[in-house]
């Protein structure tokens, strides 16, 4: 946080208290009602033309790509994708890991930043959580449908059966099933619980009608009484506390798919932290990719401020550098191992037939965020959008590099063969992008895209002692001082 230590506050008792000066999270001195109006307005007002312009193609792409692509896939066979008996996974698992990674920023913003009391999260956490859910939906499509016999996917569920046969709990893939489904469920609960008071807000603003009934049902009869808030906040805290290790575990488990294998280039202990960092990295980039335009379209500049964006840019810089470190560490370990298989795996990644994927990964993921060292770049939305897009693409390539380049050049040169995706595969991937956008646009349309209650809570006047500090020299502009004041007077 950009902060300077000041010795401004001088209390009644004459004690000089060093306080942090903070930037405001809500600009222009907006009132509670303005916030309510602004956010609910997104749901209540007619959607801007741009919304339709984005939604209709997205929905169509989703329908054709995902609906059509998967129907064809299931009716015909996995062969319509580009995999072979050499490279058994291609776009499918690449996309799965990509989407799952995207999802991580949402949980991270809502849970980890909540636990660390980063109040600036409030403006973006709702959208980020929604993004998580939709990303997991997109992600789930791939492992579910990449299997050869999707109609037997229920074999994965430990259901007592007449065959008296069970799952293999040693399989990372089964861990994946549990991890991803738990992740989806918990994210959904987290998202929904967080939304209940806001749904109540919309309910209370609605004219009687179907909408009011629907919002009424989904807000569960929320009244906003403190006896509810009290438990509610505890529940929220607990979910945040549960989600934090969960989010770390999910991508760790995803990385176990690779790390527990014997494949050179996969079998490495660095994968879990590297994957988690990568996921946060990619996720934040996606949050920016989505929120920067949404902020513009819906005029939310006062809620999602440049400070938010600046913070996210810094996280991208940090995680991008971690990821870069992991890339280099992988190389170091491979060459340090003395195993020709490991060394070759990385040699071929860098300079082999898929060198372009590796080059893309390196330049987009490691180099492009480095410009965030410069404040000017963190303040220029165009630069930010460019870097975010770079990171989105780069992270996709990272997974592609890990999966495809490795499988195409494994142990025995006799089985080396390249992989190229089929049209159906590309279509399905594009379809999931469409699905993601369509779902996100629907979310903007029907649900409060910013956490109304929590945003209000970041206003200075939300503090129950706000009135008490009116007479303070800061005139209430420094809330920290108010706390300090109380602290001193309590003594």
């Amino acid at each position, binding site marked *: 946080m950009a902060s300077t230590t000041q010795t401004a506050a001088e209390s009644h008792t004459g004690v000089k208290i060093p306080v942090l000066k903070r930037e405001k999270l809500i600009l222009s001195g907006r009132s509670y009602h303005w916030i309510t109006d602004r956010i609910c307005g997104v749901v209540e007002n007619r959607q801007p033309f741009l919304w339709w312009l984005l939604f209709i193609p997205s929905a169509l792409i989703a329908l054709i790509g995902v609906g059509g692509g998967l129907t064809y896939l299931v009716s015909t066979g996995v062969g319509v994708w580009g995999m072979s008996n050499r490279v058994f*996974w291609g776009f499918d698992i690449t996309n799965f890991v990509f989407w799952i990674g995207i999802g991580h920023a949402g949980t991270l913003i809502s849970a980890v930043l909540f636990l660390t009391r980063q109040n600036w999260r409030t403006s973006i956490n709702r959208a980020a959580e929604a993004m998580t859910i939709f990303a997991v939906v997109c992600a789930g499509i791939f492992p579910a449908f990449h299997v050869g016999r999707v109609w037997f996917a229920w074999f994965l569920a430990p259901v007592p059966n007449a065959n008296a046969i069970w799952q293999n709990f040693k399989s990372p893939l089964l861990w994946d099933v549990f991890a991803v489904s738990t992740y989806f469920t918990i994210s959904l609960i987290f998202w929904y619980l967080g939304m209940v008071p806001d749904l109540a807000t919309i309910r209370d603003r609605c004219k009687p009608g179907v909408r009011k009934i629907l919002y009424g049902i989904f807000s569960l009869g929320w009244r906003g009484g403190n006896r509810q808030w009290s438990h509610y906040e505890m529940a929220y805290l607990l979910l945040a506390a549960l989600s934090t290790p969960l989010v770390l575990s999910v991508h760790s488990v995803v990385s176990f798919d690779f790390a527990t294998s014997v494949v050179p280039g996969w079998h490495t202990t660095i994968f879990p932290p590297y994957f988690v960092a990568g996921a946060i990295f990619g996720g934040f980039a996606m949050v920016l990719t989505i929120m920067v335009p949404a902020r513009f379209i819906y005029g939310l500049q006062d809620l999602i401020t440049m400070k938010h964006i600046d913070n996210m840019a810094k996280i991208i810089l940090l995680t991008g550098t971690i990821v870069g470190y992991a890339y280099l560490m992988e190389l170091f370990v491979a060459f340090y191992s*003395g195993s020709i298989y490991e060394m070759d795996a990385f040699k071929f990644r860098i300079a082999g037939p898929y*060198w372009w994927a590796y080059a893309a990964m390196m330049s987009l993921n490691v180099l492009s965020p480095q410009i965030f060292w410069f404040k000017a770049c963190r303040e220029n939305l165009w630069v930010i959008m460019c870097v975010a897009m770079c990171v989105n693409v780069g992270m996709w390539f990272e997974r592609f590099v890990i999966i495809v380049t490795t499988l195409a050049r494994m*142990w025995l040169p006799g089985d080396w*063969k390249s992989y190229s995706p089929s049209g159906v595969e590309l279509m399905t991937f594009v379809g999931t992008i469409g699905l993601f956008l369509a779902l996100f646009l629907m979310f903007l349309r029907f649900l409060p895209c910013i956490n109304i209650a929590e945003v209000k809570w970041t206003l200075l006047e939300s503090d129950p002692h706000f009135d008490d500090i009116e007479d303070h020299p800061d005139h209430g502009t420094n809330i920290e001082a108010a706390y300090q004041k109380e602290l001193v007077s309590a003594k």
Partner: protein
Amino acid sequence: MSKRIWHHPEVPVGETTVAWRSVGQLEDTAEFRQWMDREFPRGAAELANDDEVETSRRSFLKLMGASTALAGFGMAACRRPEGYIVPYTKAPEWVIPGNATYYASAMPRATGATPLVVTTFEGRPTKLAPNKLHPDAEGTDAFAQASVLDLYSPSRSRVILKSGKSAPRAELEKVIAGLATDTAAKIGFLFGADDSPTRVRLIKQLAEKYSDGRFYQYEALASESSALAVGDGVKLVADFSKADRIVSFDCDFAGTDSQGPVTPFFDRRKPEGKSYTEKPDASSMNRLYSVEAAYTLTGGMADHRLRIASSQITAVAAQVARGLGVNAGVAIVTPELTDAKQIAWVEGLVADLKENAGKSLILAGSRQSVALHLLAYAINSKLGNIGEGKPLLAVQSGTKGLGSLTKLKSDIDSGKVTTLVLLTPGNPIYDAPADLKFAESFAKLQTSIHLGTRTDATAHASTWHIPAAHYLEAWSDASTARGTHTVVQPMILPLYKDCVSEFELLLALLSTDGKLLNGEGEKGAASPAYAAVRATFSALAGEEESAWKKFLRDGFLAGSKYATATPASRSEMSVEQPASAPTKDSLEVIFATDSSIYDGRWIDNGWLQEAPDPISKLTWDNVALIAPKTAKDLGIYEEIIALETPTASKSPDSEGENRKSPMIKVEVNGQSLEIPVLVSFGQAENTIVIPLGYGQGFDQHDELKRGPHNATHVGLVGVNRGFNAYPLRTASSSYIATGAKVTSTGNRYSVAITQEHNGMYGRALAREVSTLKDEEKGSFDAQLAGVAKQGNDSHAPPNVSLYKPEDRAGKTLINDPLHQWGMSIDLSSCMGCNSCLVACQSENNIPIVGKEQVARGREMHWIRMDRYFATQKDNTFDSDNPALVPQPVACVQCEAAPCETVCPVNATIHTEDGLNAMAYNRCIGTRYCANNCPYKARRFNYFDYNKRNPLISHNLYKGPFGETQVGEAAHLQKNPNVTVRMRGVMEKCTYCVQRLKDAVIRQKRGQKQEALLAGKESIEMQVTSHTLRIPVDSVKTACQDACPASAITFGNLLDEEKSALGRSKRIDRNYDLLNYIGTRPRTSYLARVKNPNPKMPDAQFIGKATVHMV
């Protein structure tokens, strides 16, 4: 107890759904019968005409047994479908439903019949294996293994054609009857090059009957060179067990140019003896010198290989002859070698031969000139290699005095032959030398009767085409290479009623009324061919029934063999001067026998088409092969294509489905052919190898838009396949043509290659050692001791696991006390042919997937035949002559199998006896196992290859709207004891677990026998592992059984030293592939031993493929 009684509804008319049950076993096999069974023809007749084909196919499947009729899918879908059990009315002898019955038979071939044991299930032949009882037993090559598929081939000829159009049988019968009565007919008979005692007898009878009858022999690639050199009907048969030194002058005796049973050759490639009983001894090994232009299987086995253009090989032979002081008569005519390296090479060879006089063998390739054959014969004679008990034996085969195709042509042209009966497997209209213009003469014939299994070009050009019975459907006999009289017996009546065997046709002509009896004789008697075969046999072995029974049971007549012959000495014969060495502007074209389709006759055999060429790894097509340097010289590639690139980059033609080879135009003999090119390592410069037999027919789907052209000549397998090089041949340059010009056309053609990377990339995978002392690695013994420490294993620490594979009671998990299966593959004798691969396909119901899918890398072969080239950087003798080391890789049944742990649904787990089992029905197809398999031994069913025809263009991609089925009868080949896999499941080698289970269960039955014999109550009998463990080495996997090189050893590890497997696991050469990972595979490899001659200039570069790798 009976809770409810379900009366099944009436089966609605036409509502009979027939479901093929992969288990062809059940007792329901009805009217489907063996040849002796009277009921079958009615069933077979149902396939009679094309109009009824839909209904008859169904009823046929039902007839063929193994089917379960499911009724009431319409209205009663919610009920349990009604299934029927249809027993025989009268059980055929020896048939136990569900159990295989085995018959001895043989596959007739030009180089001597291949003795076989045929596995049949309820009369369906499903699998071929070599008859190991037979004195000329060797394994079976891919052709023999795949020939069972021809029986069920959907493109098999099944109706009588008159001038290419379907014609009634009666009309044909009239023609035959006419011929049979016209003893003055100017009739010619064109036979194949295989030798059959009964045919020899019948030819005599025909000659007696037809005063003007003439007899010819033709197969496209049966060369006359040998006959011209040593005499008509005289064959030189090699006995490799007696040959310490073998020199092959362009003779692929281990591959497509058989010179006698080859297994003994491979047995002597093992320094520990053929079943690993001795201490490793270099002197027990033989030594092979190979002089050839392009790599062949034999060349790959060679200890010393000299790379030289085919046309120049005679010069090398002459040099050898001179060195040995062979009578100058033939030696003088050829120019001397000028290259110092080659001279040194020959000198080393000559010295070695001198030392091993009488124990050496000089073989001349059949495609080579008469001169070379004369030279080879002269050298052999000089060294005293020929004779009884010597490495080479000259024998007089039964077939002699038959005219050549050239003679036939002139006889037709001169009107001496007006009626021709074609019984040859050759296809002269398509494959005769171009300058012969045989087709023009053929058209002059009044009547031509073609008997063949395919409706090929000759079938269409003939006035009459008769569908031939497959050799598994016909009575016949054959001679093996050394002339053992061998029976060819039918397993089944011809699948289609008009199929006629060769003898049936000949016997019809020999009969007075000319009545054509096929399949069965009159009134249920056996086919007339039966009597003929038996008569031939009786003449040799007497009339006794017991002798005949033994003949049928064993498959051969013990003691029968060809008489030895004394070849005429023709050393004075003048021979042509060989052409001068090829140059960049005057290239040499070598017409090669194709390793997949031979001379083109197997173009419609899907297994063979999909089996990758052992050297080029190409499937489904032929291409021109060219040395890397020559390719650059000709401007085909901008740079010399490297064997290995530092970064494992793609070939300039890309990889997988994107791989498209550049096309060149080859102009030679006044003809030209546009054909794609592949770079071939180890090939002589300025030569082009073009395999023959392709390009027989094209339809509208052809990639190069060549069709429709002759589309009816081939079936779905063979259509649009490859490029026809026959028009480039002339009678005088049938095998080697010189003066060719090549231009790059700029076009490209997609090629489906199963192995895109040819080097080992510094990984000691297919290991090699040399009997010669290595400066760094020491003596032969030291090198042997170092086998397990080659490559990465030299410095990788041992794998130590914290986990112990134990159950709750602390007992080890892989705990079967009776059987622990294991395998070893001896790279020293594996040559990399496709025999095991095709045998596995046939045993395990492995589908073919078509060119497009192979190109994508989706071939289903459970055995991937890897072939590596290894170059020595400092090879000063010939750095462009890399060593070739094949390495078959199937599932190695790791004890710590990485695939198992990653399967989420327990579809692949280990069995107690050490197999990595695969439960297809549990598999959901995540493919994770295959990714985690270091050997990439797993195969995924990306499509319903068994239910959707992969051969129709894009058919697989049409899903439910695609054409179903690969053919009408292809299912009948399926092994009933192996599940036919559906799409979306993983599959892989399981050591033929069905065979293992069968053997183990058979053994278990012995318990009861023992109790009965002891006269005790069963409860008083103590059963021991002796009762329950199968006898040592008594079960064979399909690949092991088929292997002509006996490179695969399989058995029970618990038999330890008693079994060949146990011994092979204890020798120094034994190593685990990718031992570094710690998978503890049950299949291990035995390093290849090269036995170089220390006096050769290249000796120090031999056997070094991996020895210096770290």
